[in-house]
C-alpha cells in the first residue's frame, strides 16, 4: 500500500556483492556489464552480483529481470539468508521497527528470520516443498516454526491458507508429488505465507507452466499484495510478469544493475542499450 511508504523501507541493500571463489582485488573492477562477463580474468572467480543497491517498501512488488546467469537468484538467496555477501549491507526492518543488518547476522537469528519473517517460493517446487509429507504437513511445518503447537489451530490455519491459494481443501492430506505443477506452486505460496511474513521472495514462480496456470498464479500474487500488503521481490525473465506485477523493476546483467525505474518507464522508455534490446526482442 502506497500509504505505508512513510514507514520506511523493509529492505535497504547497499553495494551488495557476492564473489564465488578465492577472489582478488580486481574481481569487481574487471567484471560486469562494461566487460561483458562475470568471471574475473585475473583470478577466475565468479562475480555473481556486485554493487547492487535498492530499497523495497512495505506492500511494494519489486521486479528483478535479467537473462540466465545475470544474478537474479543470487540476490534473492542473499536476501533470504541462504547465502552471505562478500561485501555490502542489507538492512531489514521488521514492521514493529527492529532493524537487522542481514550481512552480519548470526545463524540463529538468520533462522528465526527465515522461519518467521520471510517467505520464499522457488521455481523448482522440490526446493520449496517437503515431498515426504502432506500438503497440510508442509504448511504445519512452518507454523510449528513460529511456535504454534495447538493441533486444531494449525489445521484451521492450514485450511485457510489452502483456501487463500485455491488449493482444494480435500487435498490437504495428499502429498505434493500428486499435485499438478500449478498446484505445487500454489502450495509453495501457501507454505511461504504461513508465518504471515513481511517479505515474500518469488523466484521464477511461473516459469515453465501453461499460460492459463500462470495467469491464475499471477492473479493470486496480486490478491496477496492487495489483501496482505506484504513486500515482494519477483524474479523473472518474463517482461509480461513484471508489467503485470511490479511497480518498479531492476534489470540485472553480468551481476550488475544496468537500469532500474518504474516498470512502465523501463518498458516504454528504456535507457540502457541492453534494456532496449530486451524490450525490443519481446515485442
Amino acid at each position, binding site marked *: *500500500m*502506497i*500509504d*505505508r*511508504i512513510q514507514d520506511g523501507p523493509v529492505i535497504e541493500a547497499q553495494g551488495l556483492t557476492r564473489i564465488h571463489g578465492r577472489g582478488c582485488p580486481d574481481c569487481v573492477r574487471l567484471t560486469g556489464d562494461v566487460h561483458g562477463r562475470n568471471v574475473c580474468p585475473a583470478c577466475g572467480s565468479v562475480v555473481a552480483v556486485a554493487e547492487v543497491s535498492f530499497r523495497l*517498501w512495505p506492500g511494494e512488488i519489486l521486479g528483478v529481470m535479467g537473462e540466465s546467469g545475470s544474478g537474479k537468484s543470487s540476490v534473492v538467496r542473499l536476501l533470504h539468508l541462504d547465502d552471505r555477501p562478500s561485501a555490502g549491507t542489507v538492512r531489514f526492518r521488521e514492521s514493529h521497527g527492529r532493524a537487522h543488518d542481514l550481512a552480519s547476522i548470526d545463524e540463529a537469528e538468520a533462522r528465526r528470520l527465515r522461519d518467521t519473517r520471510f517467505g520464499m517460493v522457488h521455481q523448482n517446487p522440490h526446493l520449496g516443498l517437503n515431498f515426504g509429507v502432506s500438503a497440510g504437513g508442509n504448511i504445519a511445518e512452518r507454523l510449528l516454526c513460529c511456535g504454534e503447537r495447538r493441533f486444531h489451530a494449525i489445521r484451521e490455519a492450514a485450511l485457510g491458507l489452502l483456501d487463500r491459494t485455491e488449493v482444494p481443501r480435500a487435498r490437504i492430506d495428499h502429498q505434493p508429488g500428486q499435485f499438478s505443477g500449478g498446484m505445487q506452486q500454489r502450495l509453495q505460496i501457501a507454505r511461504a505465507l504461513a508465518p504471515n511474513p513481511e517479505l515474500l521472495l518469488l523466484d521464477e514462480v511461473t516459469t515453465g507452466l501453461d499460460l492459463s496456470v500462470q*495467469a491464475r498464479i499471477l*492473479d493470486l500474487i*496480486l490478491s496477496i499484495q*492487495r489483501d496482505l500488503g506484504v513486500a515482494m521481490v519477483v524474479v523473472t525473465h518474463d517482461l509480461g510478469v513484471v508489467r*503485470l506485477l511490479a*511497480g*518498479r523493476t531492476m534489470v540485472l546483467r553480468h551481476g550488475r544493475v544496468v537500469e532500474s*525505474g*518504474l516498470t*512502465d*518507464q523501463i518498458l*516504454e*522508455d528504456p*535507457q*540502457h*542499450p541492453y534494456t*532496449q*534490446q530486451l524490450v*525490443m526482442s519481446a515485442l
Partner: protein
Amino acid sequence: MSLSHPVLSVSGLSKAFTIHQQGKRIPSAQDATFAVHAGRLTALVGPSGAGKSTVLKCIYRTYLPQAGSIILHGDPPLDLATCDEHAALRARARDIAYVTQFLHCLPRQPTVDVVAAPLTAIGVPLPQAREAARIRLRELDLPERLWDVAPATFSGGERQRVNLARGLVHRPRLLMLDEPTASLDRRSADLVVAAIRAAKQAGVAILAIFHDPALVAALADDVVELSRPAEAACAA
C-alpha cells in the same frame, strides 16, 4: 477565475529518445512550458508528432525527460522530472490520473474492481471502494449488467467510460486525458464530455489532448501549442 491556483507548472520540458542499436536520436517534445490550474482545462494542441502524448507521459514519469521541470504544487511541491521513484508512485496514487484511449487494467478483473483499484491502492477498504466505483459508473451511464464483467470484451465507448470512471474515482487533483473521445460514437463522446465538465466543476485541474478542434473550443480554458521538433535536431 482568481480562485484557481496552479496545480502543475511545466517549464522548459524537452524529451528525445536515443535508440542505441541504431545510433539514432529522435527529438520528441521541445521546450514545453505551461501551467494547469484547478478547475480549468488546458488543451495541448499541435500537429501529429509534436510531442503532445510525450508531454503527458513525461508528467506521469513513464518517459524520463532530458530537461525541464514538472512541478506538482503542494506542500511540499514535487518535481516529477527529478523526484525519486517512490515520490512519483505516491503522486500517481494520490494526485494524478492519466486516461488514454487504451484501458490499462489487469486482465480478468471485474469492471467494478478495475474502477475501485485506485482506491484500494491507497488503503480504502474494498466495500467502500466498490461503492465509490458504482457511483462513478452510474454517472457515466455504464449499463449495470457490465459491472461484474471484465472490460476485455467491451466496446470502445464502454471501455473509455470505465477508463474515465477509474481516473476520477480517487478524486485526483490533476487529470490527464489523451484523446479521450477518439473513436467513440456520439452518445459515448457526449457522456465523456459531460464527465469532463463535471470534473472541472469539481475543481480538478485538467490537461487534455483532443483530436477534435470543436472539443478544444468547447472545453479548453487555456490552449498550449506545441510544434514539431526541428528536423535539424534529428542528427544524432
